[in-house]
């Protein structure tokens, strides 16, 4: 329990920063919705004139109109996903590697505590930190829609379905971060790794959108949990969701095995 508490304390500032940023981003975007939503005809006309590729990259190639509440939310949510991906992979890349990078592993691991307990405590602390951000995102989504939708109807079930994916989405990036951090010798800069992972997978999905090709999509959770698909159809693309969950489980199990056998080096 002591490691968990110590670790969680380390996340407090970071969680606060991410939550506030996501809250601000979502509120800012949603505040523009009334402008978009009021002039349906003009809005759709403008979008028609946009190059199709651009719309695809933005994830707005669904049948939904940007003037509908959820149609607009698709456009917003892609950015939110990107933020969540960066936060989750930051934590994943960092929480196991930090002790070795800052050479505090000697302190922690010479204490009477097993590697698996260290790993589990650290994992749960990171998970709690992500869950708090997740909760903030739920609350902000509902409140901003309530405030800015001007009483327009939308399918609340579909929205809930979409928000339910956040947890898995976070786990995906965190577990990929974990497995990479225990596979390489040393992670010098967490941020460059997490940026590369998040943007890399985001761009992969954008490429898939433009050029097609399911194969590219198999690797990226931006496709597994595409907000346009979920909000429009009110269901998950189940095979892809299972791929995501499979990758998460494999990464976590492999991390566990590698971490227990890892040689901890010093200067």
């Amino acid at each position: 329990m002591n490691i968990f508490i110590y670790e969680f304390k380390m996340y407090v500032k970071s969680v606060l920063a991410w939550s506030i940023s996501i809250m601000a981003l979502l509120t800012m975007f949603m505040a523009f919705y009334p402008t978009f939503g009021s002039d349906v005809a003009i809005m759709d006309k403008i979008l028609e004139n946009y190059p199709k590729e651009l719309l695809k990259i933005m994830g707005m190639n669904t049948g939904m109109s940007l003037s509908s509440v959820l149609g607009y939310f698709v456009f917003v949510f892609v950015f939110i996903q990107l933020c969540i991906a960066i936060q989750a992979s930051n934590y994943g890349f960092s929480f196991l590697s930090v002790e070795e990078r800052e050479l505090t592993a000697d302190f922690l691991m010479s204490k009477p505590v097993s590697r698996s307990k260290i790993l589990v405590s650290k994992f749960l602390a990171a998970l709690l930190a992500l869950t708090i951000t997740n909760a903030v995102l739920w609350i902000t989504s509902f409140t901003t829609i309530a405030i800015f939708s001007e009483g327009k109807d939308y399918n609340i079930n579909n929205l809930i379905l979409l928000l339910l994916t956040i947890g898995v989405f976070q786990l995906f990036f965190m577990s990929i971060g974990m497995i990479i951090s225990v596979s390489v010798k040393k992670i010098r800069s967490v941020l460059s790794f997490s940026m590369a992972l998040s943007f890399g997978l985001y761009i992969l999905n954008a490429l898939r959108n433009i050029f097609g090709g399911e194969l590219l999509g198999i690797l990226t959770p931006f496709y597994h949990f595409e907000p346009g698909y979920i909000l429009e159809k009110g269901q998950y693309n189940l095979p892809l969701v299972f791929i995501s969950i499979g990758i998460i489980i494999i990464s976590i199990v492999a991390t566990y095995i590698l971490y227990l056998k890892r040689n901890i080096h010093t200067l």
Partner: protein
Amino acid sequence: MNVIQINNLTKYYGKSRGIKDVSFEVKEGEIFGFIGPNGSGKSTTIRTLLSLIFPTSGSATIFGKDCIEHGPEIRREIGYLPSEVFYYDKMKVIDLLKYSASFFKKDCTKRMNELAEIMELDLKRRIEDLSYGNKKKVGIVQGLLHQPKLIMLDEPTSGLDPLMQKKFFNIISEENKKGATVFFSSHILAEVQELCSRVAIIKDGSIMKVEEIKSLRENNYKKITVRGEGITENKFNIDGITEKKMENDELRFFYNGNINNITKAISSETVKDVLIEEPSLEEIFMHYYN
């Protein structure tokens, strides 16, 4: 009883050698020195004992239990001070010590405060504001606050001023008198000489010798200096003479063998002065390493 028992411990980092076939034991209640130059494998051995790294082959037991399999259990009774100390920078000293104490199922507050007072450690400062020597003091306190039965020190005195070194050695001897076994690695022989009863000498990853400090010094090595005009160097081509050096009118060498042979050789010369001394541990040490 052996507190530490190391059997053919080998560790390779990829292809590069860490330690090779290391075997020795440390008995309960002794202060055991582990000497060797940098890169000889001292830290590798200690880190394997703490299961920070895993051996390529061989095994080691501490308190009779396998040090990998029963690692967490064993470490309840181990106090470890690494050669380079790093702690969570943002923490205050007191919080770090409390965090350290929270891993042990006993109240360590009293001992913690005692040690902090002896080492003159300011508990309210942040770790990142401490000098290297002060961080080292934090290391000493956090390593000893749970009154461990086995104290492992990896080059503990670097960064401590002589006064603090003295205090630190006093603490270690006191703990030892109370029953703690001490395993002490160093490349400074004087400090090993001061504290230890037995030593293992490691070179290029292999143990050269395990010996009582006393017998290591007795070991019949004599450091002999003969002074006089026109000493014939050839007369001193006797078995057992090493490191022979002729300088001006002075012949210096180490001798290990029948003392009568050497006195005869000396008496056949006209000498001004003869000096027969015990070699220092440094010199014995150099002998193993040349």
